[in-house]
């Protein structure tokens, strides 16, 4: 079960930031499903939204890394 994999990851050395990935996917899918009705459109929009959220978060991460460089 995928929740068992998560549990193993939560107790292992996997950085906590990776838990954001399934959350981004789930949020994108449910949000897109509440906007559209056709399955193909839901999946396409969810993919785009996942990339947008992921890209935005990576941008913020890069900014924080840059700002904290040398500290």
């Amino acid at each position: 079960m995928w929740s068992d994999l998560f549990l193993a990851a939560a107790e292992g050395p996997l950085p906590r930031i990776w838990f954001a990935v399934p959350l981004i996917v789930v949020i994108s899918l449910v949000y897109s499903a509440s906007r559209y009705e056709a399955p193909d459109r839901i999946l396409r929009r969810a993919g785009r939204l996942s990339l947008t959220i992921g890209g935005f978060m990576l941008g913020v991460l890069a900014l924080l890394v840059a700002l904290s460089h040398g500290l």
Partner: protein
Amino acid sequence: MPQTRVPLKDPMFSALLAFLVPGLGHFYQRRMFKAVLYAVCILGTFFTGMRIGHGQVVYFNWQSTENRTYAYLCQFWVGLPALPALAQAELRSSRAFDVNYMPKPMTSQFAGKLTAETSDFDGPIAGSITLRPHELNMPHLWTGKLSGELQTAKGPVKIEGDVTPGSGSLDPEVAPSEKRRLSGTFEGRTSEQPDVVIRGGLEGHIPRPIWNSYEAPLRDLRVNDFAGDQTDLDRAHFLLGSRFELGVVFTMIAGLLNILAIYDALEGPAYDGEEEEGAAAEPTPAPA
């Protein structure tokens, strides 16, 4: 209410079903793809959060200002999977959360460890224990009769004995753990050497049924701040670390996502058919 081309069979009832079980309202409306998507995504996120947080991250506590579980206001919207938290907090007798409370006899499986005065009888012990109040009208003073098998260095031996009244501690009947911890001073005899009395400390647990552990509240009442008392919440944070917050976040997000699903069951999708956003940017191909 906006007009929608998607047939929404009895929207109010569908929304109620969608609240109770994510995806059920859409299943009722025969919107199968969405039913499966909502059920898998929302329930998957909720129960993953519960697993990450060892089942201790969804509970309801509204006793005092600093101990209110605001996270539950989000978790609540997952519906039936989150509703037992309300029942555990509001419908239970306060005695169910008392340590050492044993109002009536009960028999249960026990697994633990015996630390005997003589090291020959140290070892894991498992068997059946009968707990009962030591005297009538004194439910906080319990005693126990244990019968089981002790694993010694020389091999397993049958053992029987009693837990001395008032010598130990028994976890509350209701708490967010499948194991109800029990400890006390034990005095017993083995079947091989019935004339030798074995004394020692007994530590272990009896199983706690799921209806006494699922979404049971974490008690955060500290008896004595200066004595370094650990509350249930302190212990959960200590044991789980960041997994506690991670579990809370997963379960909160699951509840918030179900609000979108409920609204979808009630009103239909925001962009329906020709109204869909970006329809002009994605023209349908002309028939050949």
